């Protein structure tokens, strides 16, 4: 079965004057994938999204979207974008904004559907300036959906949302995406990444240092985190093949392991008087921090989804 390649980047590089934003990036995103771009500020996430959208020019390499050059009219018709700043005029109403954006597309979604999808019911006659931060973001999201896009690009969509609004937005994104649409989302929120992504790319200094599913990323540092207060000599764990990573500061020990049972029994044998023993699955945050630590970036993990 042929899988449609939505974004095809080969050896892409981009710099701003002397600052390197992206280096030698090669990436294929297929139809239906939900890619989340993670990384510190300035790591290259937004640059990649802007290159895909065709608002930035490549310095090097090639980048195709739906098999066409970025920025091509047929690409823009199939792509919806929610940018970090959108400067939506405050004096126009929700309905006026939606009506305007719908005219840009030949087969737009109906205003009713947009209002329902972005949960803007009852706000149609309110001006953008009178909406709360979360409601403004939802209108921004609705504008991205106007053309019924097959590729949705979201740059930090839940910034400025409170917890409820953020979760509601995730549901809205999730429902809209279905299985056929492709998502590229840049975020700093790891919960958002886990909730919406099935493929996570971690950027560091313009390079992709990890490219895998959330589960696979977690397994890179061990699947389980064991923590305890103990004076045990950690050297012994270095010989345990199930222990992937050890952190020991003062009396606080943290082990990231692939087989929790053997490590726990070993730990209890070595120190039966240990305190505050806790066992929990390793989080994406643990994996993320490990990958961005000097040790992690040296390893330069790169696995395929």
């Amino acid at each position, binding site marked *: 079965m042929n899988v449609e390649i939505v974004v095809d980047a080969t050896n892409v590089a981009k710099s701003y004057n002397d600052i390197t934003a992206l280096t030698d990036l090669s990436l294929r995103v297929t139809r239906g994938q939900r890619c989340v771009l993670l990384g510190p500020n300035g790591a290259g996430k937004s640059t990649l999204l802007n290159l895909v959208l065709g*608002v930035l020019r490549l310095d090097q390499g090639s980048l195709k979207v739906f098999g066409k050059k970025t920025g091509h009219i047929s690409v823009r018709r199939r792509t919806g974008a929610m940018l970090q*700043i*959108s400067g939506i005029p405050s004096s126009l109403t929700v309905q006026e904004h939606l009506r305007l954006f719908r005219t840009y597309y030949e087969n737009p979604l109906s205003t009713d559907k947009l209002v329902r999808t972005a949960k803007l019911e009852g706000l149609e006659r309110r001006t953008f300036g009178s909406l709360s931060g979360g409601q403004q973001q939802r209108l921004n999201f609705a504008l991205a959906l106007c053309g019924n896009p097959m590729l949705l690009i979201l740059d930090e969509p839940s910034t400025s949302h409170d917890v409820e609004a953020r979760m509601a937005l995730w549901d809205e994104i999730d429902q809209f995406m279905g299985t056929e649409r492709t998502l590229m989302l840049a975020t700093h929120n790891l919960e958002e990444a886990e909730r919406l992504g099935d493929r996570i790319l971690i950027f560091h200094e313009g390079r992709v240092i990890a490219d895998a599913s959330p589960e696979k990323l977690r397994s890179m540092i061990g699947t389980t985190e064991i923590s305890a207060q103990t004076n045990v000599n950690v050297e012994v764990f270095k010989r345990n093949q199930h222990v992937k990573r050890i952190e020991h500061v003062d009396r606080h020990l943290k082990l990231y392991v692939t087989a929790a049972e053997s490590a726990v029994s070993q730990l209890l044998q070595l120190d039966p008087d240990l305190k505050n023993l806790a066992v929990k699955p390793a989080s994406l945050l643990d994996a993320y921090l490990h990958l961005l630590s000097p040790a992690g970036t040296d390893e330069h993990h790169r696995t395929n989804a």
Partner: protein
Amino acid sequence: MNTIAPMLERSAHFCRILLAESYTEFLKCLRTPAFASAILGFPVIIYLFCGLVIDWGETIERSHQFWIIATSSIGAIGTGLFGFGVYVANERGQGWLLLKRVSPMPIFVYFLAKALMAVAFSILISCIILAIGHAFVVVQLSLVQSALLVVVVSLSTIPYCMIGLLCGFMAGPNTAHAYVNILYLPLLLLGGIIIPFDILPQFVQSIAIFTPVFHSSQLAFKLIDTSFGYPTILHLLVLCAYSIICVCLASFFYAREKARTFG
């Protein structure tokens, strides 16, 4: 037949976008008090004060006509420079232009709609001034002169839109307003529409004849036979040249920014 149908469809789609975009621009400006009061209010207030309140004695007939034309021209300059140039700069800075660029709308429609909005505001200003003139003053412009004034004013808005566009792209989003302000008052003074041209010092006059305001106001003053008698085609050519040069330079700055950053 096969090629005509899609072409017609595309044209209809394009017209729909232009119409929606222009309507939205007009609404947006009308609902922005700073814009509506400054751009609409300034020329109207000058007209009320200079055209109606001040008693010009024996020259009252000519003065009324002069102030109708002068303040309508001020309206055209203001809408072009502020309503077009400063707005483009602001929206560029706030990210609205970027959102338009990633959508499938042709970006020139955005600029065209803004230019149409500026022209519409110029027409609105001259209509308000003419209506006040007709309502309160015995001696005014004839119906034909009034209609021609509206045409001249709407056409002369375009070069100021282009100058505004250049300011908008040359200056940063936050400094465009300052740039345009620096330009606005000297243009008004040099064009002979606030201070009569012939009382300006000789060396200022020799500079002023190269400004677009001189040529656009001369076109308008031709309606009441108070121009300096230069051929109409000369004024039109100078205004066209200004527009073309400003568009080229603005395109250069736009392309440079597009290549460099997020525009």
